[in-house]
């Protein structure tokens, strides 16, 4: 069922209505729902947050677009609320964090596999190995802070092991800026990919910056500070893939298309019927936004939206495990580094990134401390200790 972006008009903006009761619904179940339901909710919250962010930036820069941006943005805001409030209250910030990193691994892997441009695909593989490492670090934190098993959340879809060590992910800002696609020649899918992953990384960054200070443990506070810094790098990296020469309306058009594409992907995979109903409704809302902006594009830029948009949507983003792909990339590219926009096998000793990294890590590395000697096993690392100890209670031990 290839969705025709030009034929399907969706729900018109004026019929996109909400109530507080409607926005605040029954959340998914942390225990019963599929891990990918959690990752989809996290992704779509990030996409909506980015829809707001972009529209606010444009409003600062463009008087003519302001009223149009305000109208659509209000719908985006209420969409984001409904999506984000699907997260259940028994899911702690650290548990949600595991969901963020799992999403980053699996969504970026899917994007890397389907990306037609080799340089862009390389960039996704490069970043994926870093979020892969974050999942491992946060898993160790979850295990060691509270004695809980990260796989309760990850559900055996993703590996819990080191990737490119977080401690060496710290790069000089100039080594995070990539070369963008060319908006005149790039495949529309490349544009949708870059918007999606940038949005998702931005929300990851903002989430860590919000919840980090709620942690009591000093290593947890440090780890959130450290990984938030990498997420800032990721936003820099993926954000620089988008062509700055696209006009605002062109960017807006593409963003709405990316929203349609992501909801449509969620819809294709969703297993929770209550959540699925939300995805269906919002595919239609986003089509409404898309057509609203198509009109603006025609009127204000005198351009045909078909110049920018694909006629039908590509294959949905794959919400599934990519362990084989991730392991292969890990074995081949874990030592890769970046020098400016280029990927290289090693950096000279005195390279700016090495200097930058040494400075940041000079008083210790939270990501190394938290996972020192850590190997995940079912039931937490304490299960191994308990096994060695045996469960025989030799009567009363205390004197």
């Amino acid at each position: 069922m290839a969705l025709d972006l030009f034929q399907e008009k969706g729900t018109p903006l004026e019929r996109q209505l909400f109530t507080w009761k409607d926005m605040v619904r029954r959340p998914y179940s942390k225990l019963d729902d599929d891990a990918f339901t959690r990752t989809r909710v996290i992704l779509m919250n990030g996409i909506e947050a980015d829809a707001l962010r972009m529209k606010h930036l444009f409003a600062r820069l463009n008087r003519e677009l302001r009223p149009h941006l305000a109208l659509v943005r209000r719908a985006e805001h209420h969409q984001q609320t409904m999506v984000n409030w699907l997260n259940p209250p028994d899911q702690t910030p650290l548990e949600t964090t595991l969901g963020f990193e799992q999403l980053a691994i699996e969504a970026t892997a899917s994007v890397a596999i389907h990306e037609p441009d080799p340089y862009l695909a390389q960039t996704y593989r490069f970043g994926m190995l870093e979020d892969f490492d974050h999942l491992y670090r946060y898993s160790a934190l979850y295990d060691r802070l509270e004695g809980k098993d990260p796989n309760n959340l990850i559900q055996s879809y993703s590996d819990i092991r080191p990737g490119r060590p977080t401690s060496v992910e710290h790069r000089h800002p100039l080594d995070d800026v990539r070369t963008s696609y060319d908006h005149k020649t790039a495949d529309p899918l490349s544009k949708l990919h870059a918007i999606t992953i940038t949005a998702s990384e931005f929300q990851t960054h903002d989430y860590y910056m919000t919840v980090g200070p709620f942690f009591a443990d000093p290593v947890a506070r440090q780890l959130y500070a450290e990984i938030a810094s990498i997420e800032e790098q990721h936003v820099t990296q993926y954000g620089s893939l988008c062509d700055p020469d696209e006009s605002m309306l062109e960017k807006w058009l593409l963003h709405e298309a990316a929203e349609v594409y992501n909801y449509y992907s969620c819809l294709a995979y969703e297993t929770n019927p209550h959540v699925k109903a939300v995805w269906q409704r919002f595919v239609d809302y986003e089509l409404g936004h898309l057509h609203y902006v198509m009109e603006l594009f025609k009127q204000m830029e005198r351009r045909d939206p078909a110049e920018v948009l694909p006629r039908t949507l590509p294959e949905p983003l794959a919400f599934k495990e990519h362990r084989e792909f991730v392991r292969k990339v890990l074995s081949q590219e874990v030592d890769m580094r970046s020098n400016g926009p280029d990927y290289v096998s090693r950096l000279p000793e005195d390279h700016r990134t090495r200097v930058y990294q040494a400075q940041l890590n000079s008083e210790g590395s939270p990501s190394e401390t938290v996972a020192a000697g850590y190997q995940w096993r079912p039931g937490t690392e304490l299960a191994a200790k308990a096994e060695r100890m045996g469960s025989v209670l030799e009567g009363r031990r205390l004197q």
Partner: protein
Amino acid sequence: MSKDTVADVGMNRTGIKTSPIDSKDIIQEAQRAIPSSPGDGQGILEVRKQYARESGDGLGHVPPPSSLKGMAKTAVDMLKGSKPTVFIDKLGERLAFERTGVRLYEGALSKLDVYGSWEGGPSRELLTKILDDELGHFALLIESMEKMGADPTAMTPSADLSAVISQGVPAAISDARTNLRQCTEALLVAELTDNASWELLIDLARGLGHDTLADRFQLALDAEAEHLLLVKGWLAAGVSTEARAPMESAPTPAP
């Protein structure tokens, strides 16, 4: 610099008496304003009831037995007219709690390194012993769940709920600003729960005819009873030591 005592006099701005003039003014203004809607705090509970009625499956389910043996056991229990998942759910809760307990005592030991103890306070030896007990209880529960054909790695609804209830306990212990005496307050909450929960689990096991398990659980409860006694004693001694300490003469942490 960290302090060993927690109740010294200092600048605390939270009370109304901090600002005698401003407070008089804002009290008057609050009384003058008319609420925008009639009613009282009951309205919140009404909405809560509405959502509760629509909450579907609650927190989640107990996973099905993971082995044939487990399924057979479950079938036998069902024939006896009892719902075996209740027992599995509670075993899962205790397992998770005991496992978290190990991390709590690790945290307490690290506070001992910084602050040292007090007269009648915890020793390294006793804290380590309790830690080992919690680990042993965790191991006992893994074994019990496996015997029942249940998956000991699953987070059961009761395990999830008890983690929600006790979320503050690990937070209080891992906060760099709390001393060992304050940590024993958190340990007290954990040990009180430990005791009551083992009692309940033993009754449940006996009711279902799992007498061998119940006997072993009784040994765990005996140990928990000692934990509780110890923690209460440490706390009482700690608070009274603090109450006797001269003002502002807080000893700094041991090097």
